[in-house]
């Protein structure tokens, strides 16, 4: 590796200002607003300077430039939820060279981080969704999977996990289309769901990945008067999918609390900052992250058990 201009004169870098910064995919989105709640709580609890930042649109270049700027501020740690794993490697490497601790989330397989923390193992999570979807459809019928973006890593892992499970346990179910892209846009999800309903009148199930997918799908299903015959499940949060759980158009939503995930990242960063280490079984003292499991394949990835499944019965317990 040729000498990095940045590190040459890191001597002139400012004394660290003790900050912990969480860089999210994008600001102004319900999901990450919730994560910010966690970040702020954590700051309050620990009395440390923690804050959240993110680009206006969920783009790789946006995150790169923020992290690049942060390096100059030399915070203690940067925790990041990448839009594009590979796309962040270089800048994260620079951050670590500059002596900044880097923790990531939703980024299994990313290299230049100290620790990657997952709410759960992605494939298992996808499988869990398919378990429920299979039950709901009675293990038979056509179904379709939707992703926010075809370029979204975790989304593809979820649907892959789900698909594998379906192949293994619900041989009578058929995925009638390749995963469909909703462009993270509810209106698009709605229109594509409508097309599916027209093309496959006796479709039995939908799996959504982006938080708004299931909502768009649910609207289409509801309008088609098929709320009962079609099972709609996938990732979303109560504040977004709730009303359709009540109407019955959505059967079950799956998620993990972004606030807790935010806290978990920071907690790990702090442990590392204090010279500690993360191993199998580490307890972060955060619900769902009491006993971390090391993920196979990657040497820096750990998962909690923070996945939640919510249906009509328990939707009331969540206020986000």
């Amino acid at each position, binding site marked *: *590796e*040729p*000498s*990095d*201009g*940045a590190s*040459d*004169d*890191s001597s*002139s*870098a*400012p004394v660290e200002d003790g900050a912990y910064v969480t860089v999210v995919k994008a*600001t*102004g989105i319900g999901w990450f607003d919730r994560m910010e709640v966690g970040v702020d709580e954590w700051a309050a609890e620990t009395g440390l300077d923690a*804050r959240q*930042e*993110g*680009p*206006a*649109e969920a*783009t*790789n*270049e*946006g995150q*790169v*430039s*923020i992290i*690049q*700027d*942060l*390096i*100059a*501020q030399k915070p203690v740690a940067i925790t990041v939820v990448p839009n*594009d*794993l*590979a*796309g*962040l*490697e*270089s*800048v994260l490497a*620079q951050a670590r060279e*500059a002596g900044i601790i880097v923790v990531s989330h939703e980024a299994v397989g990313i290299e230049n981080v100290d620790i990657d923390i997952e709410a759960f193992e992605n494939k298992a999570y996808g499988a869990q969704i398919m378990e429920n979807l299979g039950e709901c459809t009675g293990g038979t019928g056509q179904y379709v999977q939707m992703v926010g*973006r*075809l*370029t979204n*890593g975790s989304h*593809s892992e979820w649907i892959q996990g789900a698909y594998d499970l379906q192949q293994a346990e619900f041989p009578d179910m058929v995925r009638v289309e390749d995963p469909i892209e909703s462009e993270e846009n509810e209106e698009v999800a709605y229109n594509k769901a409508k097309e599916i309903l027209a093309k496959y009148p006796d479709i039995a199930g939908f799996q959504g990945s982006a938080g708004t997918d299931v909502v768009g799908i649910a609207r289409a299903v509801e309008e088609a008067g098929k709320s009962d015959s079609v099972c709609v499940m996938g990732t979303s949060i109560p504040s977004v999918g709730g009303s359709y759980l009540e109407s019955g158009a959505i059967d079950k939503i799956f998620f993990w609390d972004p606030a807790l995930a935010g806290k978990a990242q920071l907690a790990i960063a702090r442990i590392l900052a204090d010279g500690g280490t993360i191993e199998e079984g580490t307890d972060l003292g955060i619900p769902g992250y009491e006993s971390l499991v090391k993920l196979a394949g990657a040497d820096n990835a750990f998962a909690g058990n923070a996945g939640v499944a919510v249906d009509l019965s328990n939707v009331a317990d969540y206020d986000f």
Partner: protein
Amino acid sequence: MNGTRGALSEMNGRVDNAFSAAIDRIHVAHGVGRMALLLVVTFGFFAVLRPEIFLNSVNLQNIGIAAPEIGVLALALMLAMLTGGIDLSVVSIANGAAITVSSIYTHFATTQGADAAASMTPLVLLAGLAVGALLGAVNGVLISMVGITPILATLGTMQVFNGLALVWTGGVTISGAPAALRSLGSTAVAGVPVLALVLLVAAALVAVLVNRTPIGRKVQLQGANPVASTYSGISKRATLMTTYVTSGLLAGVAGLMFLARNPSASADYGSSYVLLVIVIVVLGGTNPNGGSATVLGVLLAAVTLQVVSSGFTALRLSAYEYAIAQGVILVGVMVLDQVKFRRRRGRRAMSGTAAPEPATSAPTH
């Protein structure tokens, strides 16, 4: 009321004298002066507020690393705007080039091994640039031969190129780039990042092309008044093709810069650059109706926005506050500028009725 208007117009008259005189002396588009000023002001502003962060060499270098790719894209768009057109596909083309290089390289690396691949580096990079030029040529054909309005043609190709990239990569971000390229992204000569030097070289070449070569001048004339340039024997086809191929080539260079900064390529990188680059080019003093543009102005604009962006992070302001600032700067600069040149403008508004768009009087878009 008439009185006030009279007085006002008199004052305006005097202001006008001063200005038009100045303008006649340096008829360089006024993008340069105002941008230089704005750059100094913003820089000073942040330097005073958060010196320890902002003036920190790391931060300054970051600006020098982040600005170039945007700068080169801006140059690409500037050329299109110079002809009175626009090129919305620059980012897609850049990604196309990046993906080409990355895939070819990784292919060799896996088949012939890393060393063989490394030795192929020059060819691989050329392939990337070639793809850039080729995609640019597609725009050129659609615009100059099929006769589609640039905004539509490039909006379409933007989607097509992006879509094809998606098909090619299957949506996953592909990793891997020639080591030589990667090292470029992280080396600095005398504290100046190599990428910044690349931008400067590209800018210089574009400046020469536009101002010092016959075809460059023709491109300008084409933008200033298409009818008159046809009547002067200037071939519309030649100028437009040159413009969009060059623009594609520059986009290709930007694509290589993407890779240099980070050895991975995806169909979706830089989607937020499309509008940003338009803002930069116009701030840089390019006339959206074509006919005039200054490379230096565009460079300054690119750097200025980068300064503001990292300044805002230094001040811990949000991305949306930056978006607001960007809008305010754009509108503010245009308005100030217009207040100064108002009277001249008013006058300029006497021209041939039949004049085609770029030549018509008061520009309203």
